């Protein structure tokens, strides 16, 4: 039965070697003793008078560390902030990874490659070790090497990946750390598309996804229309050194029991015109399937059975490319995200917050549990009162007691995002393990620090990956999970950005919680 309807949403495609929006930004950092006046003024937006004062000060004596500029009267507060953030003095204790990119422009599948790591290190600090953790389709692995004196002097480090460390086509994230002899550390994250050596390939993923792990598409039930909606991200990676013309048609099939089992639905979507993918480049769209009652896909979702989705496309010269992915309904829970002291979530911070919630969603979806409903709420500065700054666990419980969201389904967990946790070392708290099934009482919710910081360009941001993990961790407690000591697990007592795994036992625990549901 072919009753599902398809539509396409085109996505902005990020550059091949900066493929994830949470990748590190190669901030402009500068050597205070060398940066030209015009750069200070035009590039770093330092007040002209202040910039001249810096130049004049360094003519008198080399500026040892950026704190020396605190004594320059000509500097306004804002200028000081920029200089201290981005400026590096002659004997500065800090050093920075300025950028990480593939050495020969691109990484090709199943071929050795190298990463070129550029370092700003004006005081020639003794850098000892570079370590890159690689996140890809398989298990993460690490490549390390000792840094030579020549590399320190050149400011460029080459990290080689050998025959046994090659990667398949698709995105791969590199988390690079450099350590110096005194325990100093600088970090940088970059995601690169490993281009196919074959040299054209198609890649399927859920609408939002992490670089690593295996995934399913989620059959989302829309109660308003009584339809199931499935979204698949289709990407084509072109490893050719020339453009490739692609046909306008997308052939899709939903199978029961794997491809070659029994066909549930199939059809062809017409993009309305052929298109071209540039040399060593990518193309990406989200394809939406809306499946009404009576359609094969709807019925299969309703029976809670898995399907295999196959997507096939071809270039105009006849090269056929395809990929498959599982589609299923998932266990689900909902969250109501409440910004506490909402006036303080400015500009980019609001976007970052919901990007972080997407990170939380991908963490759970990698274990086939989804966040079905995400409510967006706020408490104004005036109403928030002392909850603007959380400074004790009892204050968290009072917050849960005093505030909730209007939740008609009763399934959503209250998640409060506080402006700042002041003077306490914990940065999140769940009311209890597991949390109550209602939204009332002093244990009914979780709260997390918004993890604010100011980035290299001076923009106020939230630590998207960390906050996504933190919300996932605290919600995990609410769903009944306790701390464990399994490497890489979300519920580590000291879980960091890369600790996002959930194991099968945890999945079973979550399944037993009364606010987790299924259609």
């Amino acid at each position, binding site marked *: 039965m072919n009753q599902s309807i398809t539509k396409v949403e085109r996505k902005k495609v990020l550059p091949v070697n900066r493929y994830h929006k949470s990748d*590190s930004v190669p*901030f402009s950092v500068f050597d205070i003793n060398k940066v030209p006046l015009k750069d200070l003024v035009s590039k770093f937006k330092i007040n002209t008078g202040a910039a001249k004062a810096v130049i004049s000060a360094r003519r008198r004596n080399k500026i040892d560390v950026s704190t020396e500029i605190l004594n320059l009267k000509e500097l306004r507060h804002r200028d000081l902030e*920029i200089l*201290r*953030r*981005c400026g590096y003095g002659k004997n500065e204790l*800090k050093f*920075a990874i300025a950028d990480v990119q593939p050495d020969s422009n691109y990484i090709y599948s199943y071929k050795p490659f190298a990463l070129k790591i550029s370092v700003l290190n004006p005081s020639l600090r003794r850098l000892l070790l570079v370590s890159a953790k690689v996140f890809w*389709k*398989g*298990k993460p*692995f690490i490549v390390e090497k000792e840094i030579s004196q020549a590399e320190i002097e050149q400011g460029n480090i080459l990290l080689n990946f050998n025959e*046994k*460390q090659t990667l*398949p086509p698709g995105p791969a994230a590199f988390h690079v750390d450099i350590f110096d002899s*005194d325990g*100093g*550390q*600088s970090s940088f994250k970059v995601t690169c598309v490993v281009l196919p050596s074959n040299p054209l390939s198609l890649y399927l993923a859920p609408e939002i996804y992490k670089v690593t792990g*295996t995934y*399913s598409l989620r059959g989302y039930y829309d*109660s308003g229309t*009584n339809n199931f909606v499935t979204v698949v991200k289709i990407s084509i990676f072109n490893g050719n050194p020339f453009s490739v013309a692609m046909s306008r048609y997308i052939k899709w099939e939903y199978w029961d029991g794997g491809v070659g089992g029994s066909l549930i639905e199939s059809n062809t979507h017409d993009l309305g015109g052929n298109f071209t993918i540039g040399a060593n480049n990518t193309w990406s769209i989200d394809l939406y399937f809306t499946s009404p009652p009576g359609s094969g896909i709807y019925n299969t979702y309703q029976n*809670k059975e*898995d399907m295999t989705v196959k997507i096939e496309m071809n270039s105009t010269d006849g090269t056929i490319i395809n990929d*498959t992915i*599982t589609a299923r309904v998932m*266990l689900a829970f909902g969250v109501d995200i409440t910004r506490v002291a909402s006036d303080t979530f400015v500009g980019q911070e609001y976007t970052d917050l919901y990007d972080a919630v997407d990170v939380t969603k991908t963490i759970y979806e990698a*274990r086939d549990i989804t966040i079905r409903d995400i409510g967006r*709420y706020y408490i104004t500065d005036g109403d928030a*009162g*002392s909850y603007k*700054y959380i400074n004790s666990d*009892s*204050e968290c419980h009072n917050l849960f*007691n005093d505030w*909730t*969201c*209007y939740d008609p*389904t009763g*399934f959503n967990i209250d998640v409060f995002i506080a402006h*700042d946790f*002041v003077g306490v*070392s914990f940065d999140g708290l769940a009311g209890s393990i597991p949390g109550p099934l209602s939204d*009332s009482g002093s244990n009914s919710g979780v709260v997390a*620090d918004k993890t*604010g910081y*100011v*980035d*290299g360009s001076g923009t106020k941001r939230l630590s998207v990956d*960390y906050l996504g993990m933190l919300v996932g961790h605290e919600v995990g407690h609410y769903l009944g999970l306790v701390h464990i000591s399994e490497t890489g697990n979300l519920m580590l*007592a*000291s879980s960091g*950005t890369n600790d996002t795994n959930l194991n*099968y036992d945890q*999945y079973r625990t979550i399944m037993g*919680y*009364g606010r987790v*549901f*299924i259609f």
Partner: protein
Amino acid sequence: MAIPLTPIAGKEVKFILNEPAKEIKGGLERESTLISREKYKQILVREHLNKILLNHCSNEEIAKMLRPEHEPILHKICLESVTTGSHPMIRKKAILALRHYFTKESINLLTELAIGGEDEYIRSNALGSLSAFKTAFSVPLLIEALKDTSDMVKNSARVGLKNVILDTEGKNVLKAAMKKTKNIQLKKELKEIIEGKIQKSKKPLSKPRHAKKDK
């Protein structure tokens, strides 16, 4: 008819978790190339310290994990600005951790960060740690911070002064500063702090209020 939502607790639902289905040349594992930390003790300490600082536990529990040899590396972390790619939360917690090191070096560094930290998060946390020493020497700095452009820094200064006046000497220093200042607004604020009138947590409500929905 729409499908109702069903809580899953207590029901037997058979799901097969997704396992890697695709054939990948060379399998799903790659060989790591690791360098022994044996001759790089400082790196080992740093990696251990990163883990300690990320712990989601109380100040007291963090204090139990910290060692004297961590202090110089904590100083390094405190100075690693965002352009080094430092983890903002690790840096924040390193600044908080210095409250457990009542040494000249740590006090000097916290003072430097409280005055010249490059953003409000750094300055306010440095003030918080300085005031945690509950001694009078930080009073002038905390009073100065009441004039900061950031509400977050001002709040830390207020809370910090409240801590410091628990010490008699601190209270006297604050009283003297109040008498000396000609700034009427500041005088009023210091008076409120001395009299304990700064905002406190409210009594929990008997019925929760509803947060507003985003439009």
